[in-house]
């Protein structure tokens, strides 16, 4: 095969009512996110909220950004970027969670200014307490 042509399947185009149905779905999911927030919520609230956001993102990408009508390579681009976001996020968080405790910020002892940099603005220095002391 030669260079890719634009594939746009007219049969897959949404009608006005289709656009509106997806829109109502998006608004309903937004309302659902907010309502779940007003209920008492625990550890699952963040994953659930992110999952709903993901569903909304998929709806928008498929229908409003016309991914459904286009070639697979366009979807592959988006999918790859999402995979690498997941890799970056997951590896960094996992690494932080498994780290030897004293190397996790703010560390076991207060930060001291570098020798010779005591008067340099922005040099590392202990924070001035703004709120009540941390328990």
């Amino acid at each position, binding site marked *: 095969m*030669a*260079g*890719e*042509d*634009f*594939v*746009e399947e007219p049969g897959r*185009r*949404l009608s*006005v009512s289709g*656009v509106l149905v*997806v*829109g109502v779905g*998006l*608004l309903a999911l*937004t309302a659902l*996110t*907010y309502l779940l*927030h007003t209920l008492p*919520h625990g550890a699952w*609230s*963040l994953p659930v*909220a*992110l999952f*709903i*956001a993901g569903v*909304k*993102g998929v709806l*928008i*990408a498929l229908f*409003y*950004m*016309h991914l459904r009508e*286009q*070639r697979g*390579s*366009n979807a592959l*681009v*988006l999918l*790859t*970027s*999402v995979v*690498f*976001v997941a890799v*970056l*996020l997951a590896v*960094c*968080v996992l690494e*932080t*969670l498994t780290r030897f405790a004293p190397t*996790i*910020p*703010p560390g076991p002892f207060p930060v001291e200014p570098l020798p010779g940099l005591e008067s340099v603005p922005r040099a590392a220095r202990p*924070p001035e*307490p*703004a*709120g*009540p*002391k*941390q328990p």
Partner: protein
Amino acid sequence: MPPEAATEHWGSEGARQQAAHLGMWIFIATEVLLFASLFTSYGVYRSVYPEAFRAAQLTMDVGLGTLNTFLLVTSSILVALAVHAVREDRPGLGGVLLGAAALLGIVFLAVKGVEYAHHVKEGSLPGDFYRLREVPQVGASLFFTLYFLLTGFHALHVTVGVGLLTVLAVRSASGTFSAAYTTPVELGGMYWHLVDVIWLFVYPILYLS
């Protein structure tokens, strides 16, 4: 680029359109990765300071955040309708819808400005400028650093998007686009949807849970 430029450089009109769309998707991928570093910072610091992040989150104005979410989702729907209208060869209607979407974007920015003013008054600001009394600085100041970075970069994208939508609205209303020439409207619309999707992820992590 009007369609007649498509003759020699591109093998076919289809290849030109595919290149335009693929290029836009790659651009969107770079934008996603750009925000990914901020989301990663958020994830890492949230796992290090769960209590401070929770305490800082409770000081956020959920009402204004939710209002902004509805504003962006609505404007996204308007843009989708506008693209549909242009595809159906009704560029005038498309221009009106795009203009309305841009207007919602401006309202979004205004609401964001009100929120920022609250934060300045309260002192819930990044790094050195943190003055919030109720929540200890270590951890919470990072929350607000990330809050301002995420919403700030997002607001920058909204501003660009509003400019883009305005230009497209004017050009569409003056009849530049038609059913045979929809690419700029489609690509501009994709950018606006991207801005919307990023906000859909920013909203729960900063305001809700």
